[in-house]
């Protein structure tokens, strides 16, 4: 086993929650609102329900082989050769997501804060910290989550409380202006970005010290994270309005810029930006860890640590390749990413479950 650490169920829940918030806090309001307009919060509620069902399916899948990581259980279910192939294909998903997050963070910082800094400089620094964290192992990542959580919650609450004076409930009206269709469309990305991407948690199922509580922790974490995101998109619409939220590339940052309490508590957006720096860092680190661990298990290596540096180079090189400019990237996010995620994270696990049950029934019928 390349990983020897164990984490508690509390740490697992916190990790799930932070990863659910992840990069969605930065990009989701814009993508979802551009479809659902002022009804994004309804999209959010639909997404939360669907997302919890998806998480339940993941936990069922995780229960099949509680001693094995996802990559190993794929091989177990689909057989040696086909399983290895599919596991290798699946590993592309965490890799691309890590590339996406570094790109997102770089894009965000160069658009809003440091326009003249080369994006590469930011990305290299970021990936260095991620590599550092991943090399320290799962236990350290989980503990980092525990330490960051109060900070994340505090910043989020501050942002929401400070913006309440500017919230206008009229901006939520009319409800369901164009029927339910755009709301459903808006919920696609809301389901995909935070919830479906949680499938990678199946990689750490064997390292949790209370296997019986996994399902509860998984659902709890996703629920808490989902509530945070619904409050966030609702705040975006309440304060900025649906139109501006859909037009702004990073609505959360515009939201933070709006904070102005009595003409003295203002210009605190850089402090609030720390909130999503932390969540993106945690999400990125976790995915990067999953990628390295998965690759190590696939290649039957003794440890995954020697993979972290070369994989980091891969991420840096891939990040300008996945999209030439921000327009392309936003289109990719809004129109293709949800379907890519749905394929990797929903269809694939369902396929695995299907194969597992058919195989079992077949076995039982041959036995009797």
């Amino acid at each position: 086993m390349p990983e020897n650490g164990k984490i508690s169920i509390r740490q697992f829940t916190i990790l799930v929650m932070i990863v659910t918030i992840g990069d969605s806090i930065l990009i989701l309001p814009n993508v979802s609102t551009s479809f659902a307009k002022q009804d994004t919060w309804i999209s959010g509620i639909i997404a939360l329900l669907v997302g919890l069902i998806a998480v339940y399916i993941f936990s069922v899948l995780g229960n099949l082989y509680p001693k094995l990581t996802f990559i190993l259980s794929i091989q177990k279910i689909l057989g040696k050769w086909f399983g290895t192939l599919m596991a290798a294909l699946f590993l592309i998903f965490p890799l691309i997501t890590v590339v996406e997050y570094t790109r997102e963070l770089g894009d965000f910082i160069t658009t809003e804060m440091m326009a003249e800094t080369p994006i590469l400089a930011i990305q290299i620094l970021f990936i260095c910290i991620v590599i550092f964290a991943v090399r320290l192992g799962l236990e350290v990542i989980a503990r980092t989550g525990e330490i960051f959580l109060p900070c994340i919650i505090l910043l989020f609450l501050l942002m929401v409380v400070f913006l309440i004076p500017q919230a206008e409930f009229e901006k939520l009206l009319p409800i369901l202006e164009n029927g339910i269709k755009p709301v459903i469309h808006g919920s696609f990305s809301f389901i995909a970005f935070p919830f479906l991407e949680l499938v990678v948690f199946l990689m750490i199922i064997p390292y949790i010290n209370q296997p019986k509580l996994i399902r509860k922790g998984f659902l709890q974490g996703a629920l808490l994270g989902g509530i945070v995101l619904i409050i966030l998109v609702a705040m975006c619409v309440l304060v900025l309005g649906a139109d501006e939220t859909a037009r702004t590339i990073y609505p959360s940052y515009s939201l933070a810029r709006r904070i102005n309490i009595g003409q003295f508590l203002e210009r605190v957006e850089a402090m609030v930006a720390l909130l999503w720096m932390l969540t993106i860092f945690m999400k990125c680190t976790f995915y990067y860890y999953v990628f390295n661990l998965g690759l190590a298990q696939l290649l039957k290596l003794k440890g995954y640590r020697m993979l972290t540096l070369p994989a980091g180079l891969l991420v840096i090189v891939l990040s300008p390749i996945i999209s030439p400019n921000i327009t392309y990237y936003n289109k990719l996010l809004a129109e293709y990413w949800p379907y890519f995620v749905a394929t990797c994270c929903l269809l694939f696990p369902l396929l695995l479950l299907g194969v597992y049950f058919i195989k079992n029934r077949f076995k039982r019928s041959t036995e009797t």
Partner: protein
Amino acid sequence: MKRMGLLLCICILLAISVTGCWSRRELNDLAIAVGLGIDKVGDKYNISVQVVEPSEVAGNKSSGVAPVTMYQATANSLLEALRKMTTISPRKIYIAHLRIVVISEALAREGIGNALDFMSRDPEARNDFYVVVAKDAKAIDTLKILTNLEKVPAVRLFSSLDTSEKQWAPTMAVKLDKLISDLVSEGRQPVLTGLRVIGDPKIGETKKNVESILSPADLQYSGLAVFKSDKLIGWLSDEEGKAYNYINNNVSSTAGSVNCPKGGKVTFRIIRSDSKVKGSMRNERPQIDIEVKTEAHLAEVQCTLDLTKPETITTLQKLAEQKLIDMIDTTIARVQQDYKVDIFGFGEAIRRSNPKAWKTLKNNWDHTFTNISVNVKAQYKIQQLGKVSDSFLEKMKEQNGVR
């Protein structure tokens, strides 16, 4: 030893890379712009910025130089003009601390949309400045006037608009994001407050303006500019501006007077006001209901009134209600007849209450708006009389009568 060396290397590398000095800008390399004026010359924009003179604003000593300085440049776009200013200015113009953006009336009549994109796109610009229109003047001329009480004219313009909106009500402090959301909204057209130069602008541009007690020239907000899409089409008077703000629930405090039953005037101090605009469809026709609830204190009596009787208060409330309703009605009628654009957001109100009907209405909304029936209700509550009950005028007149 090897480990120590490696650690040292990492530390040095980190120290170099994480200090964040990449695109650093020192305070003394920046020209902090507080006011920005946009004029149009032919096809090009003439941009003027009011930049703070740091040595004049900091501390208490002043060496007699103007507290701000101005740079201007003409170019195809705003950013080009701002960058072109470096040919005159020793420092780069930094617009994160903008307080006010003045658009000239001429440009506003041509359309303001194109000029605003830069402001909403540039990450340096924050959306916390006010946008106003220079009435009968070039934007640059309004930014040249020196002011008293607030040394920096742009800051003074900002605070003055802020205060007058809160205490006097006919003006409207519009920030960029509100302006843009009105511009893109189908059911509401934007308005901006007008800014004009009063007195002698020639003296206003010199230090003399702040040396005398009564400034020979000053800047005053007056009227609301009515826009159709992004083009200015006319002005509302102060009274109409007040009605506009009553309708839009934008009155926090103001003063207003009504005629007494037996002649003379009585004035109220409006403490708070709350209004609701409701749109609905009645017999296939859009209908707007406006309800204004106002709480006022009696502030000034210039007529004979028996304020010891509760009935007097009731009469006064009725009078004030009627006046408010008349004011709102005439303003709406004027906008419907003269400008034919929905600045009140009635379309938005219809959209909020009946999105289905709005889908067909919106195509011809400007026309529908001119004939829309508006039902105004007002509720005035007079609660306090100030320090005295009956006015001394009463007693004075009695005695005069005896003598």
